[in-house]
Every structure is written in C-alpha cells, then in structure tokens.
C-alpha cells in the first residue's frame, strides 16, 4: 500500500473512532442527565403527594372510617392528576390487600412489581419500565393511615426523554456522515500533498538509477522532505562528479593504451616488414643495408619507448624519499653529461644558477633536467645555446630551461604533457622519441609539488619553467 493511502486510511480510522466515540459520550451524558432530572422531579412529586397525605392522616384518624379514607385519598389523587393532566402523569393507590383505590393509568398495571419488595415507610423506590412503546417511570412509597398500609405509585411517562435521545442520534448521524465526507476529501489532498514530494524524489532517483546522472529534484518546501531533497541533490552532485571523473580517467587510460599500442606496433610493423622483406626477396645490397638500418633504428625506438615507459610506471607506484638538496650543486654535477649530449648537436650549454635548498628526490630531478635539456637540444639549431637558469621569485624556486630553437606552435601547447603526444611526429621519431618525455616531467613535477609552465614562440625558442613552491616547506634563499 502506498504511503499516502496509509496516512489517509489511518487518519480516517482515527477520526471516525474519536469523533463517534466523543459524540456518543456527549449524547449519552446529556440523556442520562435529562433522565436523572426527570426522575428527581418525579421523586419530589411523589414526596409531595406523600407529605400531603401525611398532613391529612390526623384528620382521618379522627374519623377512622375506611370509606372516608378512600374518598379523601381518591379526591386528593384526582386533584393532583387534574393539576398535572398534560404531563403524562399517572397515579395508582392501592391498599394493603392490593385493592386498587385509585388508578388513572391508560395502561394495565404490571403484574410483577419488583419495586414493592422491601419497601418501608421512609423510602421511595423507583423503576423504569417499557410499557408498550412508552417508557414509564414508576415511583412507589408507603403511607400508613390508621394502621393500614397504602401504596402510592406515582408514574411518569419518560418517552420524550428517550425520543430526544433518538433524535440526537439521528442528528448526529447526519453530522457524522457530513464530517466524514469532508474529512475524507480534505485528508485525500493533504496526504497526497504530503507524499507528492516523496514521489518526486523517488522518480528522480529512478531516473538517476537509469544512468541519467545530471537529473536533480526540484526542492519546493523547507520541511524534512525538502531537506531530504536537497541532501539528495548534493549526493547526486557528488556521484555525478565522481562518475565524470572516472569517465575522464577511463578516457585518459584508453587514450594512453591506444597511443601505446600505436607506438608499439609502428616500429614492430617496420621491423617485421623489413626483416621479412630481406628474408623473402632476392639479395640487393642497397636494399639490404637500408632495411637493416630501419630495423636497427626501429629497434632503438622500441628500446627507448620501453625505458621511458618503465620510468613512467615506476613514478606511479613508488613512494619517494625526499631529502633536502642543493639544486645548484646538483646541476653542476650534471653539467658534463649535458655538455656531452649538447656536443653532438653543436649546441652550447650555459648554467646561470642561484643556490636553493629544496626537498628533492635526486634521481627524479636528474631525469627531469635530462628530459628537459634533451627536448631543448632536439629543438635547437646547430650553434645555438641552451640555458639552464635557477632563481628565486616571490618565494618560489624556479628552474628554467631556455632554448633558441624551433619553438612550439600554440595549438600543441596544451597537449604536450599528454603521454605519446608529439608536436612533430616525423622529427620526434627520427630522434628516437616516444612522446613520453614531458609526460614524465609532468609526473616528476607533481611529486615535487612543482608546476611546469611553458612559453614558446615558433622559430624563436621555448622556455620551460619548473616552479617549486616552497611555502610551508621552509625553503628560501640562503
């Protein structure tokens, strides 16, 4: 059963029970009051008859005649009845031997009269009896006149009191059904209204479950359900972000794998192709040497690729032990190796360094510098200069590698850190590059919490800055 139906039915049940119970109680109470009042009145009437009889007892004692007694009593009764003729009041007087002296009842007196048992002089008994379709109140008492017992039965028709109750009930039934209908209508909308936002929430969560992660709930109220709605939206937001991130990661990985297989298969295709060509065709010295050259070059390319790839994998796995190192000394130590590399391309290496002690991983920094200088050399023209500068700028230590080479076109600038990205494929390949150098540098910079900035002008040169943030790390010029 739905929540709104539960709320609806439960509140309807509670309403009916309480409303009816309370109404019945009120009606019954009113009725009992009326009844008691009527009984009180009847009893006092009875008493007044009793007392008027008591008042004439001395006179009757003087005469001491049975007939006279009867006559007096009858005339008293008649007087009384006449006075209250319209009010359904009856009087019955019997003597000790149950002979009727007076009776004006328009119905037969009942045979069994329980109220007469144990009746003594000073008490009044009463009982309610259904006579035909009427309810009659019987009140009885004794009067002793000249050693003789007379029973006075004063009767009052209380049917109007009961009729009144029936009328009350029928009126109540009308009010009750009207109230119920009204309540049902109001409660229907109230319970629907209350649960509608839950329904909305439910629909939205189902839409999200179907993979539409950008769906949100419209929050209208500020009650608990409204709060639930906004928490739900927050949750959906987080989930969506997370999923987007995962998708991005996945795309990145897929791209990496695609590029990697491409980079792996291209040299393999050449190696296999040329080797097979040599194997299956007639010997021709020029072709033979060409093919061997290609096989050697492509083999070297594969070797370089696997080395770079291993570096890249290592960077992702290991926890590095950082130590305080002096950068200038480290660069000076590397200078001979760098100069050897530069010599091949007839490029001059220049060092212009300020001292700076930083938290570094020696070997990684060497790989970083080596790669940056290697790139700079590859971009340089013969006779050019590659400058390595380190200096302090606004609390950061900057390592800059500056060349005067061919530069990088703007469209390539934001992609050069992607693994396997090559701005100039032919040139990169001819120098055994795999397009992994800068990706490697990017990772090393990340490990050192450093940022790499590239500025370049085509045919003017490129400047790559590695900015080591020293804030909170206690570095500074010494």
């Amino acid at each position, binding site marked *: 059963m739905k929540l709104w139906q539960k709320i609806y039915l439960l509140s309807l049940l509670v309403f009916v029970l309480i409303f009816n119970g309370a109404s019945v109680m009120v009606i019954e109470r009113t009725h009992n009051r009326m009844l008691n009042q009527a009984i009180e009145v009847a009893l006092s009437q009875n008493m007044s008859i009793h007392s008027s009889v008591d008042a004439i007892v001395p006179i009757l004692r003087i005469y001491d005649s049975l007939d006279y007694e009867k006559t007096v009593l009858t005339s008293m009764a008649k007087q009384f009845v006449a006075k209250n003729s319209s009010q359904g009041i009856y009087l019955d007087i019997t003597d000790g031997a149950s002979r009727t002296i007076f009776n004006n009842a328009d119905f037969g007196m009942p045979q069994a009269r329980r109220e007469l048992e144990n009746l003594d002089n000073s008490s009044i008994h009463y009982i309610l009896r259904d006579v035909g379709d009427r309810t009659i109140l019987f009140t009885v008492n004794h009067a002793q006149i000249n050693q003789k017992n007379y029973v006075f039965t004063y009767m009052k028709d209380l049917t109007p009191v009961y009729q009144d109750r029936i009328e009350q009930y029928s009126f109540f039934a009308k009010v009750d059904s009207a109230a119920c209908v009204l309540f049902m209508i109001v409660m229907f909308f109230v319970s629907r209204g209350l649960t509608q936002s839950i329904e909305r929430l439910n629909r939205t969560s189902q839409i999200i479950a179907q993979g539409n992660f950008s769906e949100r709930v419209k929050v209208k109220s500020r009650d608990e359900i409204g709060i639930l709605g906004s928490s739900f939206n927050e949750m959906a937001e987080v989930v969506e972000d997370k999923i987007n991130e995962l998708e991005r990661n996945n795309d990145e990985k897929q791209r990496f794998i*695609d590029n990697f*297989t*491409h980079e*792996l*298969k*291209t040299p*393999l*295709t*050449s*190696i*296999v*192709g*040329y080797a*097979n*060509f040599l*194997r*299956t*065709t*007639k010997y021709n010295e020029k*072709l033979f040497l060409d*093919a061997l050259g*290609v096989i050697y*070059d*492509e083999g070297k390319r594969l070797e370089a690729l696997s080395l770079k790839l291993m570096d890249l994998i290592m960077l992702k796995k290991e926890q590095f032990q950082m130590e305080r190192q002096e950068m200038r000394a480290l660069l000076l130590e590397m200078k001979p190796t760098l100069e050897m590399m530069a010599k091949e391309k007839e490029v001059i290496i220049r060092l212009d360094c300020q001292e700076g002690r930083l938290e570094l991983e020696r070997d990684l920094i060497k790989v970083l510098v080596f790669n940056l200088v290697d790139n700079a050399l590859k971009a340089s023209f013969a006779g050019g200069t590659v400058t390595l500068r380190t200096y302090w700028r606004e609390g950061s230590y900057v390592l800059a590698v500056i060349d005067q080479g061919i530069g990088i076109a703007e469209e390539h600038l934001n992609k050069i850190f992607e693994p396997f990205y090559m701005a100039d*494929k*032919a040139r990169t*390949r001819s120098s055994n590059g795999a397009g992994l150098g800068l990706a490697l540098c990017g990772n090393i910079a990340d490990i050192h919490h450093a940022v790499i900035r590239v500025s370049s002008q085509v045919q003017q040169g490129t400047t790559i800055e590695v900015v080591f943030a020293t804030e909170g790390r206690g570095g500074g010029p010494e």
Partner: protein
Amino acid sequence: MTKKILIIEDDIHISKIIKMNLNLVNYDTTEVYDGLAAIEILKREKFDLILLDVMIPHLDGFELMERIKPYGTPVIFLTAKNSVYDKVNGLKLGADDYMVKPFEAIELLARIETVLRRYGKEERMMEFQHVQVDLDKREVLIQMEPVELTPKEYDLLVVLLKNKNIALTREQFLDKVWGGDYYGETRTVDMHIKSLRKKLNLQDQIKTIYKIGYRLED
C-alpha cells in the same frame, strides 16, 4: 596494365616497406604522409586502390574516408588499433577491408588482390616470360600451346605468379593451394614444384630458398 595504389601512411618506414613489397609484384605506388596531401593528390590522380592508415596527421583516416568515398576508389584500412569498434567503424564508413599492424606482406597482397577482384580490376591474363595464364579459362599456354597441368599445379603456379619475387614457405603454399584444413606433408609442395619446373621449363626461375621455401624470380 599495372594497377596504381595510393599509400597513405605517416610512418615513412612502413610506407616504404609497403611500397617495396607492392613494387615487387608490379603494382605502381604513390606515397603520401598525411591527410591533406592525400586529398590534394586524389584531386589530380586516379588510383585503383588506397591503403589508408587511421592515425595520420591533420585529417585522420576515418575523416579522410568520407572525403575519399565520392571517388569510388576501394580502400583498405591499415591500423595499429584492433578494437572491434574501430573495425566496425572503418567498414561502416565504406572501407573494403581492414588490416591490423603488424601484418605480413603476402597477407596484404592477398587482400589487395581480393578487393581488386571484387571491383573487377583484377588482370584476367597473367604473363611470366614465356608462360601465359588465362585465369578465366584456367589455361596455361607456352607459345600459344596449351600445357596440361593438374588443378593443384595450376593453383600453385598462380600463387607463385601473384607473389612474384617473394619467397613463400612450404606452409604458406599448403595453406594457399590446399587450403587451411589440409594437413599434408610439405613434401607434397616439393613434388608439385618439381613437376611445375619440368612442365613449364622454369628450372631457373623457381628458386629454392634455403630455410624458407620457393620463390619465382624474373
């Protein structure tokens, strides 16, 4: 008439090895190294078939495919990617076949031949020195005189002619002539080669290649 094949491949080494292999079997080849150059040359020249690498600069192979379509030239994709998606995508775009790197030269030749045949561009007459072969009639002539060959000998001759100047292993011959399901001995190939040499007087031209198999040389 020699067939003209356009090789669109950015890796110079691969482009060159393809060219070398195609030239061996007398295809005429033109090489271009990126998508824009390919569009330029297609405007000027007509080709019988295009070998197209997917990952090339400027315009990738899939984009280029759309530009090639109007020329109606058959295309074989060459690529390092071998995901199903790429294959389906390539074929959907109208490529006639798909080759994943690295591939073997004779495999490439066989695919090229199949595609050309589908387009009705295959030579129906083959000639090698004094031997002529009519592929439609399955007839071999020497100086206009028919030569009696068994069906297997005929098939073997055709394989040799189609892979002229390329050595094939005995296994490759078995596979191409007797079919992949045939588990015969490689000696069967030797027997047939011997008989071909004799019947067609090709003792010098069908060379035995040490450690590999046989090669038809001109």
